């Protein structure tokens, strides 16, 4: 592979050195209370030669909902790519339940319970709704259970079960993507801008589902532009700018920080 190829986030292949198997055996959710279930320690990441993350550190404790905020291009999606295994950090440690998993493949992470809903609808457009749900069963949950629960939670999906996912409305597609996070019982759910391009009323609906997942004890990382919506259900928040974390605290404080910076930059 040449240097330029690195400019596209490549799907790293799974290789044995990463202790994800041990994690799968131990169970991600069984982490002790004082150990973060997910931790990024001084993570650096780059697209080819272009350094994008300059030492991002954040922690997510078990059952916590954490929001990651920041302007366009701050590096939020890149941070999430590291968490999902789509990018391997160039430096720093990525820890799950206290174990270093740098370089683990996304499919390996998905199978141990790291469920990522990527930016811009993580569905397969040419597959039907049912088939999309069937694919979620690769994480280990039986296909029948996934389907039953998803259709019960989202009656709208049940109506469209044989429709190609790509022909559904944006909100419906996002529901389908979210259904995977909802019914596969992940240990960690990572959501990148699920509200992107959707009407506020749909966003409200989606967030009510997210709140429900949060109450069930799943640890959640949310990246959002609609800061207000996300902060309402968050336990803690981080603010990112230019590839590093610039502030961290409880949602109310962070909202204040955001407001100040928006005002400062003329918004």
């Amino acid at each position: 592979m040449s240097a330029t190829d690195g400019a596209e986030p490549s799907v790293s292949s799974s290789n044995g050195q990463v202790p994800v198997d041990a994690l799968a055996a131990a169970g991600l959710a069984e982490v002790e209370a004082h150990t973060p279930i997910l931790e990024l320690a001084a993570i650096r990441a780059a697209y080819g030669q272009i350094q994008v993350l300059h030492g991002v550190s954040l922690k997510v404790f078990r059952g916590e909902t954490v929001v990651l905020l920041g302007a366009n291009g701050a590096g939020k999606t890149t941070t999430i790519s590291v968490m999902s295994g789509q990018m391997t950090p160039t430096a720093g440690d990525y820890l799950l339940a206290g174990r270093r998993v740098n370089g683990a493949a996304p499919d390996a992470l998905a199978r141990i319970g790291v469920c990522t809903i990527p930016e811009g609808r993580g569905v397969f457009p040419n597959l039907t709704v049912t088939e999309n749900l069937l694919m979620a069963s690769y994480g280990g949950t039986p296909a029948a259970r996934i389907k039953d629960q998803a259709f019960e939670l989202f009656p709208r999906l049940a109506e469209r079960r044989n429709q190609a996912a790509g022909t559904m409305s944006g909100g419906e597609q996002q529901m389908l993507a979210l259904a995977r996070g909802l019914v596969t019982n992940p240990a960690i759910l990572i959501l990148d801008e699920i509200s992107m391009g959707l009407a506020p009323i749909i966003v409200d609906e989606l967030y009510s589902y997210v709140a429900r997942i949060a109450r069930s004890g799943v640890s959640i990382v949310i990246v959002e532009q609609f800061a207000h919506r996300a902060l309402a259900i968050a336990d803690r928040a981080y603010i990112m700018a230019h590839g590093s974390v610039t502030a961290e605290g409880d949602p109310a404080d962070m909202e204040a920080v955001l407001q100040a910076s928006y005002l400062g930059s003329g918004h």
Partner: protein
Amino acid sequence: MDVKEILQLVVIGVAMGSAYAIAASGLVVTYTTSGIFNFAHGAIGMLSSFLYWQLTVQDGWPVWLSVIVVVLGFGPAVGAIIEFGIVRGLRGSSLATRIVVTIALMVFAMGLATNIWQGQSASLPGFFPDADPVRFLDVALSVHQVIVIVCALTVAVGLRFFLFRTRVGTAMRAVVDSPATASLNGIKPDVVSQLSWAIGAGLAALAGVLIGPMLQLEAFALTFLVINAYAAAVVGRLRSLPMTFVGAVGLGLFINLVPYVVEHIGFLSSALDGWRYQPALPAVFLFIVLMLIKDSSLRGARPTRARTMRVPTFTESVLGSAGVIAFTIVVAQFLSNDTLNRLQLGFGVGVVGLSLVLLTGYGGQVSLGQMGFAGVGAFAMLKFGGASGNPLGLLAAFALAAPVGALVAIPALRVRGLYLALTTMAFAQFMDETVFRHEGVFGSTSNALGRLSIFGVSTDGDKAYLVTVVTVLCLLSIGVLALRRSRYGRVLTGMRDSELASATLGIDPRAVKLVTFALSAGIAGVGGALMAMANEGAAAEQFALVQSLPVLLIVVVGGVGMVTSAFSGGLALGLMSIVGKQVDISNLDLLLTGVAAVGLSRSPEGWGVGLADQVTRIVPTSRRFAFLPGRPAPQPEPVDEVTPADVTRPSGVRAGGLV
């Protein structure tokens, strides 16, 4: 009109089409899941035919066991190995590299087969050769033909079921849709892709076992038979399995009915008298299909960022050329006539390779048919230069090949990427099978072609002629580099990076493409003329389709963006032919290209680029010798790439998927 005769042809056409359908569906399965169009698909079928023949006819294995070993063992294993060893390394590489690697495999397989089963042009019995033919609609069908049709239907239904009704099959379609999302779902894209290659190659093997008995068992013919499968797959836009089946059966009918029609229509049969048009029918079919399909943003045209190499200045290219020529003059004194002749041929092909530096390296268009243009050049040389070696013959070669290139470029204005490569391949096959073999072109007896005689100085001697070939290569390289530095060259590379962006700047991409194609064909024509003069006579075999393929290979291996690849490629071909003669391995060059394929998947931009990097590291720019390739130009900041394909393709649904 004899209804019964027509019915018989239709039934045979359907049986043949069924075999193509099996091959073509395998091609579609691998292409959609990996984005690699497997040119070696036919070669896998060919090897399977031979292996099956070896097992049954030679070693006396029972048929059922041989079928299992070949179709369920050998084929899938080859597919899985190719996926693991080569395809994985090609993610994100350029179209030229992706095409060339499987072509290298194809060429390698042909070399392998001709070595293992040397000169064996045996025939393979079909299934149940002694059984009575089946009568259907008053037409007799051999049991083998019935089995072929049944197999095709089974494969069609089976693939449909597998892809739509099983979890693994659905996962395969999911990976086609979005590999990234698939892995976020816990699917291992590598495993799925490997499985699809195993299935695809298994289908190729099945097709080989079924087609082998319908034809003569001959390595090249069986390999190129799969051009037929390409044609069928293109009907399905390389994506839709049902349309691929339709295309395959349509092709089977086309091949069988056209000769009947021609025979019965007076003026057609007299017009085509003396032309071997039948072998070119699949190419004609492919050409027609390519002309008919609408080129929406085809997946073959996925843009990639190519590295831009520093272009040597005029002084540098002249000094470098002088050095190369001087070196050749000195070395030529120590070489035997046979060695000299092989080098002449090698550098003659190098000139054809130079035409690809312009077309593919600078212009980003891939042609697999440059030998078709080279043959046109040789023809011109024969007619204008003749025995006298008039240098104007070279000019004529350019002048005749260039318009032919422009003609072929007309579909290029419509299709892009992979489809263009297939178009040029169809063209080369047509020239090879039909035009060059016509009596009136190169003549049946050996035609006397004198080597160049420049201002009365003859280059008849082998030393002198080698120097002449190298000199012409140098002069053309200087010209190509000058073009690259000109406004036209900047437009050309700009277009390679973004056709859309260039169009918005007021450049007409079609005009630029047409000119590029014509210039490139002209250069290839000169190369063909030089090759013919090296042999002191032009022959169809020199310009066969199979000769076109290594040309692209050698320049891509050498780094298709640099003129030096024409030199290294020419030298490599010459040396391979010399070594091949020493060690007495037939088709050594074909075998060595397999090595090149593996190498390329490790260094997709060609070894030459890697070498250039090393040189720049060791020798500071200011002190570098003029003829060394330059350091890659500084990379522009990679911004979020908005490519024309992204703009034109709605981000939601990609029509089709693997259906």
